[in-house]
């Protein structure tokens, strides 16, 4: 099912059609259990994903563990192979490049990781953590210019200049994640990928980091991909959303379309499972409702991958549904029996 028109853009047209990030029919496959006797079993972590992230736009990617969201992110930044399909950034193809060919692109495509401590070199002082990308990507900068850029970026991420001389283990979780963000934006990238970048933080700190990322995104006109399992976080930070289930996009559209009026029963299940601090009570388990094991992506189910867990599943679901337009402007869902907005909760 070739599907090249996976645009998640709203009404605003980008300056050029090729601007921003374009992902077309991308699949990421790993081999597991490889040994000298066998070539292993292929695991299709991501299957046939297509979407666009225009300039200055944030795409949220949601899904449970094993849905392929991190594999997709790693493939976009050249850390995992794109086996099929094409990724382009501002008109330039960036998939299928070797490590060496990708290196100059890293200045423009940066990533913020989940654990701020393990992603910062413990042997470097904060100044060197921040200056390292400048030394790599802008070797012509003078020492004074470099110091100035580091000072500016510390201010941008809301830290005092004094932290420059500290090591990462001397920082709090929130401060360390601010440094992780500072390191990612110091080369003034156009695309920022955040993989669960706030999940390791306490909620009071998480909120301040999300505010910072949202402000940076607007100030620097960044294109951003924000991966999270937390729908509340996605609703706050993203403009559009893609919901992944077992490696496939099952629903996409604007935040309002997908999270306020979901069409796919899986998105609805995620929304119902998301707890809020408003004191909404959950009831004891329904009698006879046995937990269903999440199917594996080494042997994905035939037809609709969600049908074993789906309350709406029927005979037709044994054939795979295509991602097709729903009522909203950019809203798409891969479901034979999508929820129409009146019945959505």
């Amino acid at each position, binding site marked *: 099912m070739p599907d090249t028109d996976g645009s998640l853009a709203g009404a605003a047209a980008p300056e050029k059609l090729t601007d921003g990030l374009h992902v077309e029919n991308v699949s990421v496959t790993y081999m597991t259990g490889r040994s000298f006797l066998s070539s292993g079993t292929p695991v299709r972590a991501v299957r046939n994903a297509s979407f666009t992230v225009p300039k200055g736009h944030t795409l949220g990617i949601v899904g449970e563990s094993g849905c392929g969201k991190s594999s997709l992110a790693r493939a976009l930044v050249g850390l995992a192979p794109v086996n099929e399909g094409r990724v382009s950034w501002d008109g330039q193809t960036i998939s299928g490049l070797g490590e060496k060919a990708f290196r100059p692109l890293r200045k423009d495509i940066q990533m913020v990781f989940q654990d701020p401590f393990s992603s910062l070199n413990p042997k470097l002082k904060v100044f060197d953590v921040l200056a390292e990308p400048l030394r790599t990507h802008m070797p012509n900068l003078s020492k004074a210019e470099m110091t100035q850029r580091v000072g500016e970026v510390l201010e941008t991420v809301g830290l005092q200049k004094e932290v420059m001389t500290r090591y990462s283990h001397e920082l709090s979780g929130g401060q360390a994640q601010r440094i992780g963000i500072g390191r990612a934006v110091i080369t003034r990238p156009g695309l920022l990928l955040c993989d669960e970048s706030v999940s390791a933080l306490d909620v009071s700190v998480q909120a301040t980091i999300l*505010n910072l990322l949202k402000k940076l995104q607007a100030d620097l006109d960044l294109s951003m991909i924000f991966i999270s399992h937390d729908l509340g976080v996605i609703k706050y930070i993203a403009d559009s959303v893609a919901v992944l289930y077992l490696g496939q996009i099952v629903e996409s559209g604007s935040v309002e379309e997908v999270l306020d009026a979901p069409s796919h029963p899986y998105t609805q299940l995620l929304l119902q499972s998301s707890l809020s601090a408003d004191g909404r009570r959950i009831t004891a*388990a329904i009698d006879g409702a046995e*937990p269903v094991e999440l199917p594996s992506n080494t042997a994905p189910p035939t037809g609709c991958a969600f049908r074993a867990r789906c309350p709406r599943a029927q005979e037709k679901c044994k054939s795979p549904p295509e991602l097709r337009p729903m009522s909203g402007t950019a809203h798409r869902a891969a479901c034979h029996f999508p929820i129409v907005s009146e019945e959505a909760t």
Partner: protein
Amino acid sequence: MSVSFASQDHHVLAVDGVSLSLTAGRILGVVGESGSGKSQLFKAICGLSQGSVSGSARLEGRELIGLSAKDLGTVRGKEIGYVFQDPMTSLNPFLPIRTQLTEVAVRHLGLSKSEALDRARGLLHKVQIPEPERILRNFPHELSGGMRQRVVIAMALMAEPKMLIADEPTTALDATVQLQILQLLKSLNESTGVSVVLISHDIGVVSSVCDEVLVMYAGRVAERAEVGDLIAAPRHPYTHQLIKSTPDVAHPRSKMLHGIPGGLPAPETDRERCLFADRCFQSAPVCFAQRPPLRQIASNKTLCHFPLEEEAALA
């Protein structure tokens, strides 16, 4: 109860004179961020603390602090079931589930092997595990995270404890599985009457299943209330801000989240003051100079010089 740790240059008070009681059959939620002392408090109660513990903890009148390691082992298996965040803390990777479950009932209840096996089957059914016979033969690594956590809950219940302490039992799980585990804790509480303590960093988790909630900050109880009163009318500014900083998918999109600037006070900070004062939106000089009093407003007990909506308290 107090728990302290001695480090190189200072004395770290992880739990600072906390007093609480839990009525049998209820679900108590304990919420707090990292460093709040929430896990340390309950580890100390069960004799699992590495720090030095002072104070008293009684279970149905029996003092737990100062018991011998052997007696504590019996209390932990038989009277109090403990469920950790990582189920592999409680499971032995080299033994099949069957052996691990039956061992508990043989040791603590003196059941025969076949009686214990019947009990294990019944409990696996109770924690809603499909195909209990297959699970009994399985080793822990053959199960998913959600199934392992169900097995650990069943194991904690094998000796019919009076109290179940679940420390971040759903933090490592996906949202859909988390919901199932919380529903399970709720239905076990309803059907067996076991008292539950649910420790979590997530106020959403706690507010969705608990009867009462304890909010901890820097080793102290900032506020304690019936869940409805806590969520609808928090009296402590920290509780209020904690609720406000949690992003909620059910709410309309917000322009800004209300984070709490700053962080926990350094361990050497003078404790004769409000420990939240540096991060509080309404702190006054007295907050930095005096330990706040414990005030009661409706069902809320709050440790604050200026509880929110104080006029309501005076009325």
